[in-house]
Structure formats: structure tokens, C-alpha cells
């Protein structure tokens, strides 16, 4: 096919850009509301804040149809394996927003019951501060994630982000399962 056969104008570009653009514009979050932040997450999806503007209004109830897990609220030791399971059920590519200080670092609940940061269980892409973050903060986190997706690489899987302080031999390509004491049976 020669160029002179073309009937219309055309643009050249990279497939990567197209994929990134498409991914960025249709991130579907899984409903993973845990505590106070879940209410603000719902408020963000409702009329006043209207996440539909960012192509995000479709909260999937099944993790298998979702790309993004918004961990909204404190993660207890009992919930940690469940959260990990839901994350494992999600298809690649997948992203995680840790919404609120409790999910990000344990927040004010530095005690026996709460996992001190959901990043001990699943890898987190964006942290949203606040207790609870207002819907605007959540939106900012979402837009930050969009930017990350738009500028990131499309093929590299998460496991290839090897931390430098761990020797390659001892590194196993999985994030830790759960911090709960005595999970194996």
C-alpha cells in the first residue's frame, strides 16, 4: 500500500501512547470501602463531585472487572488476607490508591489491630492524605494516578521494580502475603 492510496488525513504515533491514553481514560475502580473514607468515596461518586467526569463512575463490584483498588479506610489484621485476595483476583494491569491516613500508615490507630499501612500487603501507587480525605483530595489522587498511567510504561510488570537494597538472589517476585501472625494453617 502506498501513501498516495490513502483517502483521508492521518497521524502517526506510537501504539504505546494510544494504549496509555485508553487505559487512563477508563480506569474502573473496585468497590473496596472499609470505613469512613468509603463514605467520602461514595460522596465523590455522587452528584456533587461526579467522578463520571474522569471516566471513573463505574464502581465494579467484582474485582475481576476492576483496574483500580481504592483502599478506603483502616485495614485490620482480620481484613488483610481478604484484601490481598481481592487484589490477587484483579487482572493486570492494576493500580492501588491508598485513601486516607489509616490505609497509608495506620494513622492514629497505631495498635495491635490495624495493619500499619496497606503497602505492607499490596503495592500502592498513590497515597491520598486526610482523615478522611475530602472528595477533592480523592480526585486529586485519581488525577495523579491518571498522570502516572499516561506517562508510565505499558509492558513492565510490577514485579520488575526491584528495590536496590535487596540482593537479586533473595528477592522473590511477589509482594508479601499478609502480616497476620500465623496465617498458614
Amino acid at each position, binding site marked *: 500500500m502506498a501513501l498516495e492510496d490513502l483517502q483521508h488525513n492521518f497521524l502517526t504515533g506510537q501504539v504505546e501512547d494510544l494504549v496509555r491514553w485508553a487505559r487512563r481514560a477508563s480506569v474502573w475502580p473496585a468497590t473496596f470501602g472499609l470505613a469512613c473514607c468509603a463514605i467520602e468515596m461514595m460522596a465523590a461518586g455522587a452528584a456533587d463531585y461526579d467522578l463520571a467526569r474522569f471516566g471513573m463512575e463505574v464502581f465494579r463490584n467484582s474485582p475481576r472487572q476492576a483496574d483500580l483498588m481504592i483502599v478506603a479506610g483502616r485495614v485490620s489484621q482480620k481484613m488483610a488476607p481478604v484484601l490481598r485476595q481481592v487484589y490477587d483476583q484483579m487482572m493486570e494491569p492494576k493500580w492501588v490508591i491508598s485513601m486516607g491516613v489509616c490505609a497509608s*500508615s*495506620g494513622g492514629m490507630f497505631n495498635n*495491635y*489491630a490495624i495493619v*500499619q499501612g496497606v503497602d505492607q500487603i499490596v*503495592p500502592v501507587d498513590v497515597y491520598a492524605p486526610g482523615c478522611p480525605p475530602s472528595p477533592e483530595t480523592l480526585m486529586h489522587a485519581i488525577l495523579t494516578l491518571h498522570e502516572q498511567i499516561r506517562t508510565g510504561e505499558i509492558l513492565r510488570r510490577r514485579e520488575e521494580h526491584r*528495590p536496590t537494597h535487596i540482593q537479586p538472589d533473595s528477592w522473590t517476585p511477589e509482594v508479601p502475603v499478609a502480616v497476620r501472625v*500465623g*496465617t498458614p*494453617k
Partner: protein
Amino acid sequence: MDAGGPRRSKGGNAEVIPLPPSAPPGVLTSDALASDAGFFPTPDQYLALVRALKDDGFELCADLCGVDYLEHFDRALPEGVTPTRFEVVVNLLSLSKRVRVRVRVQAGTKEPRVDSLFDLYPGSEAMEREAFDLFGILFDGHPDLTRILMPEEWEGHPLRKDYAVGRVPVQFKEAPGPR
């Protein structure tokens, strides 16, 4: 703890509630210690007292919780009550008389154990499970004494005073993360 107890404030149920007639003999009563009327039965008198109170019109078991007085064996109690480490506190509510009453049982020190109120108030089921889960207080006659809030394989009873808060030191930089 000093013996004075809180001063009475306006409102609440400051009036003294007499023991119901069918209560077991010898139950110690105090109105000076608490803002609600308080009864201090022994574990043997406990079930009979609560049954008598229920017959007397206390239809609702509002609350049941445990307290661990590990550091306060010298707390203010009426004369004749032997303090033990664990206490079970039951708040009963009478809808018809619009009063509350509090029952405090000395549940024991080594292996705290009291009777279950399940047969009188089925609604105490979850609250007793909670007291078992968080304090290790055993309830005789409870149909399903399993953990309720903590994971099944959790060790220890977290609200006991000798159980650490479980605080993890906060590290701000150079912390070796899990990843």
C-alpha cells in the same frame, strides 16, 4: 483509686434503686460509687440477681462489658466485696420505670468465669463473646463462645492490661520497607 467516687451531676439516674424482692439474699448495694445504682453480687449470686431484676421490670440488657483492674485492686468497692482482677459490668435498662441499673460482678483473677446471661437476655450473646474475645472472661452456658472481633487464630486477649498496645515505632526515612 480514692473512695469518694464521682460527684453527682444533674440528670441521669441518681436515685437509689432498691433490690428487687426476689433477689438472692446478701447482695451488696451501693449508690455512692456510681452515677447509676450499682449492685455487687458474687459470681454465685449473679444469675439469680439478674433474673430477679428482669422479673422486676428490667427488660433490656443495654450493655455488658469486661474491665481488667490489674493495677487497681484497691479500687473503691462497698464493704464486703473482695476485689478481683476482672469485673463484668452489666447495664440493665427498664423501659417501664425509665431507670438504669448497673451490676458489677467480681469475675475472678486467674481464670475469670461467670454465668452467661444468654437464657435471660439472648441479646447479651454478642456482648459476652466480645468480653471473651477481648478479656478472656469465660461465660458458663454461653452457646457459642468463640472469638468475635479478632481473627480466629489470634493469641491473647488484647484489652487485658498486660497485653501491649502493639504500637509499631514510626520510622520516617531509611526504613527498610517490605518491598
